[in-house]
């Protein structure tokens, strides 16, 4: 990963103005994605993963959303957040594509699935209706939908969730994007279907050589396909590391907690330990380290806010334990 990253996110902060005050959903998040890399973003519900994903394509409705002035989302050197109108539209779907959590809700119920794929193709390429239709059928075939020419005319309600997620992937693939953002692509699906969808994502990523940002709360999914992982908590990045490192040597107590709360097949007697409590509401983050009220290792220094400390090229952690090694060995 030596070349310039295809996507660079610098100091992304997103807030929402609500009647009950300003909600800081995402706070100073930075990360890079190299060409062809798979980046996993993991965290509990409500920690800002989806807002981060939507911000990458400037899909946050403003108002009530507010992306801070310092935020930069550099795609191929261009700041997506500064783009407007037609320039923005040309990136969406063509260079950076997105897959959402719930495929049933993400497709328009009154249009056939084929029309919705063809629509994206025609939004970006100067092709005729018939050509777009042919390309759409090829895409349906590529994502593993049987009898694509017939399925082209199906409406979303006539297909299962797994099939619809394949359709969403076909839409995302239609213009061979450089970056594919998948926001919880398997959460709404059956376990057996999940594996198929992940296989499909991995297959097309290899085939097209694109970068994949995979957002999930499922560490199993991360272990399976991510090269590098970012752990988010309460709107902040708390740890960043290569996938193997995250699982073998989790540096942040939150990461450790997440890993410990996954049931393990290899150790039947293993007790699952849950992280006590839940993510605090985004309108009222705890002072100091945002994790300290739930942290089993919390000590007095956690009252002040730790910074994200980089160690090496691809890992970083936001925890006083990582700074104060004496305390860590205690």
């Amino acid at each position, binding site marked *: 990963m030596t070349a310039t990253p295809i996507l660079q996110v610098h100091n992304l902060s997103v807030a929402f103005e609500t009647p009950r005050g300003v909600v800081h959903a995402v706070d100073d998040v930075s990360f890079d994605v190299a060409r062809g890399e798979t980046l996993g973003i993991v965290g509990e519900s409500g920690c800002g993963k989806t807002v981060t994903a*939507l911000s990458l*394509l400037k*899909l946050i*409705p403003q108002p009530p959303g507010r992306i801070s002035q310092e935020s930069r989302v550099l795609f191929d050197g261009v700041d997506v957040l500064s783009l407007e109108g037609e320039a923005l*539209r*040309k*990136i*969406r*779907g*063509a260079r950076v*594509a*997105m897959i*959402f959590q*719930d495929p049933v*809700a*993400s*497709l*328009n*119920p*009154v*249009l056939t699935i084929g029309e*919705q794929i063809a*629509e*994206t193709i025609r*939004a*970006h390429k100067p092709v005729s209706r018939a050509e777009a239709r042919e390309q759409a059928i090829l895409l349906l075939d590529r994502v593993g939908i049987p009898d694509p020419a017939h399925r082209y005319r199906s409406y979303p309600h006539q297909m299962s969730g797994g099939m619809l997620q394949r359709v*969403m992937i076909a*839409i*995302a693939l*239609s*213009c061979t994007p450089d970056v594919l953002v998948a926001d919880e692509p398997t959460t709404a699906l059956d376990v057996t279907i999940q594996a198929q969808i992940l296989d499909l994502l991995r297959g097309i990523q290899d085939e097209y050589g694109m970068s994949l940002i995979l957002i999930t709360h499922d560490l199993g999914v991360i272990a399976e396909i991510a090269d590098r992982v970012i752990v988010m908590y309460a709107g902040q990045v708390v740890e960043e590391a290569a996938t193997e490192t995250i699982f073998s040597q989790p540096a942040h107590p939150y990461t450790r907690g997440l890993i410990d709360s996954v049931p393990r097949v290899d150790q039947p007697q293993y007790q699952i330990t849950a992280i006590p409590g839940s993510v605090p509401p985004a309108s009222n983050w705890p002072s100091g380290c945002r994790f300290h009220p739930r942290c089993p290792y919390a000590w007095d220094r956690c009252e002040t806010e730790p910074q994200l400390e980089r160690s090496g090229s691809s890992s970083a952690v936001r925890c006083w334990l990582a700074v104060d090694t004496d305390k860590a060995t205690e």
Partner: protein
Amino acid sequence: MKYFHWTPAGWALLLVIARWQKIAEFLAGPLENKMLALVVLILIPVGIIIALKVTAIRKVESRRLQLAITTLMVLVGAAAFAPILAPYDPTHIIDLANAQTLAPSFAHPLGTDEFSRDLLSRMIYGARISLSIALLAITLSITLGTTLGMVAGLTGGVTDSAIMRSIDAALAIPRIVLLVVVLALWDRRDMMTIVLVLGLTGWFETARLARAEVLSLRDRNFVVAARASGVSNVKILWRHLLPNIAAPLVVTATLGVGQLILVEAGLSYLGLGVSVPTASWGSIIRDGRELLFQAPWIVTIPGFAIATTVMVFSTIGESVREALNPR
């Protein structure tokens, strides 16, 4: 062919034979009449087929609807083929010197009015004016209201506020007062003037409805997903939102036609409709009001026609609402 009946077909054939001369005259006559007739000839079967398909798919109780559609087709047919069907010129005064109101007779099936003009001919030509005004005005107001309402709903912000506040302001003026004032300013009112005035004052509620529907759909996932794939705002409005909000709009439109026929009749009654001597149902009532006791048919026949038409459109609107209701 299930819905094809020989009885009306036989009547139509008889009519063609009986009024052969009129048909020849009609074919040699002005082009716009022929175009209108052609459009209606195409629209009638299309309308029937669509209505039957919808009711068949949704299993709506359809007796009432079939009756309503049949009645509507008779009315629309009469309006379109007025030059063939009407026995006399509707504005022709048969005998100026001895102008008198004749009771219904064999020569004048519905009698004549006080200027001894044939009432049946006036009714047939009046259907033309009343229906055209209502249908054109509703098309205009639904188009305007939908476009502006959807734009307001989708863009939000300043555009939204500007459009919606203007609508609030316009709605503060009672419509009938506005209509009376505006129409009184025209010295010669032809059909298009009335259509424009009715259409331009009737779109406010539709705009509100369209905006509300768009607001409820705007943040739905499929709209965000379409935007994420780079679909333009215009395409999102036209292809993603419009089909999803079509049902309530169609209902508003059909119910609105009945409303407009009433408004137009009211305006004509006040003398603010299409200028004399052109007949519309409302103006026939106005002409007959002084002879209410001597010649009650002059008022009752157009009144009955107006009531029937309004009922027909209400029935169709209700059925469409029922058919499109997901529950």
